[in-house]
């Protein structure tokens, strides 16, 4: 635990700290671009992109190994990966545009075929007997163990640049996600914006390959945005929350994996991200499970209280245990079931409310049908004062003093 804490606060050496910070920057930009891609409803395109990097990665490795004897230069590998992922992206677009096949089929075909080709090239690398294929295996599920300082620096800087590019382009991205016609009127090319979005997604994927691995990098562009969706309904806060969640997940995942050799970085980052997602799903005040359970409970209490008070008004006996409990807790009835003074006041209140509602339903049946919870919500909360005043004029003979 002490090792974990000291690693968490960057106390275990420059390299680990650099890797963790680089991973956090990567997580932030992946979360940000992932948000736009999610809003554009194209999340799984990143799945195709990440798998399509493998053949380029392997080809670059082979070419560099043949030319220099060592194929592990990270910038060269990134260029190769970007080239083949770009080709994959173009093929997805081309197949969707030019044939009757749908985008999901195109994504699946590209990811499996490119990955298959990559596996073929991987076996070629293994037969090259350079003894250095270990450098490439880490790209499958991610490995930061034994990462060189230059590699960590390259990743951190590249992630920073792509993050800034996403920040600069946030307005056109948002417009294209929500209102393409308005975007076109403003002179924003939808095609160019889409291209930029996919380009940045591709860049983030390629940068993250070494850290998260190509099978799992897709999670960094999907899970944080989906988690952020629980916290807000507005795009800009969503981008900020998603990149924060992404950064936290990548940072903690990288730190944990630095503790022991057998801890795959990519898997840990994804699992931490999923943990944050579950927390968001449970605790979000907007549509978290906890919040909606509380809301449901409050509604249930309201219904029981109202039904109980109406039963009191009609002089009927109450048998439902929960109703009795609610009324007792509110101090409306005594232990023997007789209404208290406060209870009689509440009964009068409910009866007036009920009278107003039933008159409203009679006078404006159409409006009442669309008012939704009419009958449980107090009418003073649901309708404007002038309508209630009008209802009260009709009710004058029976009006209860306010």
């Amino acid at each position: 635990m002490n090792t974990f804490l000291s690693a968490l606060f960057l106390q275990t050496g420059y390299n680990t700290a650099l890797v963790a910070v680089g991973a956090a920057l990567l997580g932030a930009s992946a979360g940000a671009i992932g948000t736009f891609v999610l809003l554009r409803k194209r999340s799984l395109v990143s799945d195709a992109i990440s798998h399509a990097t493998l053949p380029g990665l392997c080809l670059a490795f082979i070419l560099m190994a043949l030319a220099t004897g060592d194929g592990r230069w990270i910038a060269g590998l990134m260029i190769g990966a970007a080239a083949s992922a770009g080709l994959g992206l173009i093929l997805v677009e081309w197949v969707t545009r030019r044939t009757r096949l749908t985008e999901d089929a195109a994504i699946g075909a590209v990811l499996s075929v490119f990955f298959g080709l990559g596996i073929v090239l991987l076996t070629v690398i293994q037969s090259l007997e350079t003894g250095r294929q270990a450098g490439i295996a880490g790209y499958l599920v991610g490995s930061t163990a034994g990462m060189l300082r230059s590699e960590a620096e390259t990743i951190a800087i590249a992630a920073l640049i792509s993050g800034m590019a996403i920040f600069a382009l946030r307005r056109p991205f948002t417009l294209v996600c929500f209102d393409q016609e308005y975007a076109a009127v403003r002179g924003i090319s939808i095609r160019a914006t889409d291209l930029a979005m996919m380009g940045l997604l591709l860049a983030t994927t390629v940068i993250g390959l070494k850290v998260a691995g190509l099978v799992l990098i897709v999670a960094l562009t999907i899970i944080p945005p989906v988690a952020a969706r629980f916290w807000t309904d507005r795009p800009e806060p969503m981008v900020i929350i998603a990149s924060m969640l992404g950064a936290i997940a990548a940072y903690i995942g990288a730190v944990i994996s630095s503790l022991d050799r057998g801890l795959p970085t990519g898997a840990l980052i994804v699992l931490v991200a999923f943990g944050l997602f579950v927390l968001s799903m449970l605790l979000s005040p907007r549509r978290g499970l906890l919040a909606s359970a509380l809301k449901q409970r409050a509604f249930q209490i309201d219904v029981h209280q109202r039904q109980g008070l109406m039963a009191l008004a009609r002089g009927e006996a109450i048998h439902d245990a929960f109703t009795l409990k609610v009324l007792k807790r509110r101090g409306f009835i005594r232990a023997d079931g007789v209404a208290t003074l406060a209870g009689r006041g509440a009964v009068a209140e409910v009866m007036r409310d009920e009278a107003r509602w039933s008159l409203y339903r009679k006078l404006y049946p159409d409006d009442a049908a669309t008012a939704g919870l009419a009958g449980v919500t107090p009418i003073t909360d649901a309708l404007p004062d002038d309508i209630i005043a009008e209802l009260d004029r009709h009710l004058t003979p029976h009006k209860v003093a306010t």
Partner: protein
Amino acid sequence: MSNEFMQLSLVPLLIGILSAVACALVGNFLVLRRQSLIGDAVSHVALPGIVGAFLITGTLSAGPMLIGAAVAAIVAVLLIELIRKIGNVEPGAAMGVVFTTLFAAGVLLLERTDTSKVHLDVEHALYGNLESLIWLAGESWGSLFDPAALAELPPQLPRLAIVLIVVAAFITIFWKELVIGTFDPAFAESIGARPTITSYALIIMVAIAAVAAFDAVGSIIVIAMFICPPAAARLMTDRMGPQIAWSVVFAVLSAIIGYVLAGYGPLWLGARSSVSAAGMIATVSGLILFLCCLVGPRRRGVKFAANRT
């Protein structure tokens, strides 16, 4: 030559063909229902199930593995539905959350447990090891009729044969329900063809085919075969029956050409060792799809016909 073929190539080739055809058969419906990526998700999700089954039983036998993978698949389907409903996100994103998480859990479990005694690691899960499924007892053509030699066959072969029969029987028996449910779920509901039950049954078939093939050839072939042959077949014809036939032809072609290219291609080029057969089969199926995209007679569907008028 004949001996070598029997011992080293016949069984892998047959296993490749059987897995390809089993996956392609159900893939036809996935492609038409726009659920192509379910194959992708299921084959990723199978990993934690299989590792979990291994941790509990300590063996890699077929029964526990299938149950583990099936449990993982059911958990995944429930989670996807839950996230889609509560999170109010598109199904693709919900699927992305679930299958990456489960796969990550599988990778972590695998790295943290001692699986050195059995053949189970991430690479194996991704691209299988078709070439290792050899039949040493198959010394000549006569071995095909020799019960002792037949008993030595790798267990994956009979298992996949059974799976293929089950899948084919499912499609034959529920043909009408599947086709109507695929093209017009509302109509299927109105005539009592139960499209919801059919689509769950289809997913179960997908899981069975994926897990059986996964064990033998790795997830990459599984994903490729779910999508590429049916997608290519879709560009050849407008009718469901011929589409299935085309997809089977393409699947068999991919398996044979891919296996031969992987085994002998490098030798023709002067290299000493072969390359991954699973990867090559996926690549060949992609090339077939690419050709169909260029010249398939039905490559342009209704969406283009509507634009032209």
